[in-house]
């Protein structure tokens, strides 16, 4: 069953917290991973791989570059769920 946008955001926030220690409630839709949340490219890739497992979606390397904000990631995941 497809998850709602809110569920995906909550799940993604949990993954960000696990990887970086950033508080889950800081992971808001409009935030940029790099500029606002200060997540580096290596941590970003770990979050992406864990998101693939958690949400059952494939996020190819070339797509990762397009995930600038949390909203980009949430939207990608919600639209590609099986």
């Amino acid at each position: 069953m497809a998850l709602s946008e809110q569920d995906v955001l909550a799940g993604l926030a949990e993954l960000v917290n696990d990887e970086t220690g950033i508080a889950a409630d800081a992971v808001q839709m409009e935030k940029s991973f790099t500029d606002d949340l200060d997540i580096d490219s290596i941590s970003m890739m770990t979050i992406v791989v864990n998101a693939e497992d958690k949400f059952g979606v494939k996020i190819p390397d070339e797509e990762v570059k397009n995930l600038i904000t949390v909203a980009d990631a949430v939207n990608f995941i919600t639209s590609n769920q099986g």
Partner: protein
Amino acid sequence: MDLAVEASNEAISKSGIDPSEIDAVILATISFPYATPSGATMLAAEVGANDAAAYDISAACAGYCYGIAQADALIRSGNSKYVLVVGGEKLSDFISPTDRSISFLLGDGAGAAIVGPSDHPGISKTVWGSDGTNWDKVGMTGSMLDFRDGKTEWPTLVQEGQSVFRWAVWEMVKVAKDALEASGLEPEDLSALVTHQANVRIIDEFAKQLGLPDTVIVAKDIVETGNTSAASIPLAMHRLLAEGKVKSGGFALQIGFGAGLAYAAQVVELP
């Protein structure tokens, strides 16, 4: 070459054999600056192993493990009794100081091993391979022909860091598990995990994903030495032994991975 000669002489000395007994010299390198002749032929002559079979392996950061696989096969087949395997690099000849994707990680160095006959297996079956569909993920900014024709500056090393990180961790952990299974050993039988010293983030995540017991020492020579491509595994193992973190006779899972993409892993008995 100086680094490779020094490492080789140390390995030969520690092995107790005379260099004239070496049947094959395998130099794993991506930075020997001649298309031909090979660095291995020069090295063989320098260390007193002239007339040994001698050739270079170009397998980037998997080069040393490729060399160990070849030495293992040469000895098991009866073709050779002693093989000198060297990982040697002068990556500083091929970096651009302004490149932020890889240059600051890289270093120069050489590590060597003498592989020889034994009454019990000391090298497990190598699990190795390549993925040329990702040939462009780690490599050079141009070819020598591009440079000759004025199309590029001097070719330097460059990589797509995120893609390489994903492959180096999640795909290579599978290879490491396969190699451990092929060895017949359990995780708790290992003394050490010696991955290619690509960067600390890869090593940390790799070790976490592989999930070995805390008793297994994870080599982190990159902290002192940097990423020396084909030299990184023998250098890291040398440090572990020299610092007394592991003992001779224990088992190490070593895995090299990098440009190609190419990879190789095997379990070895620590010298």
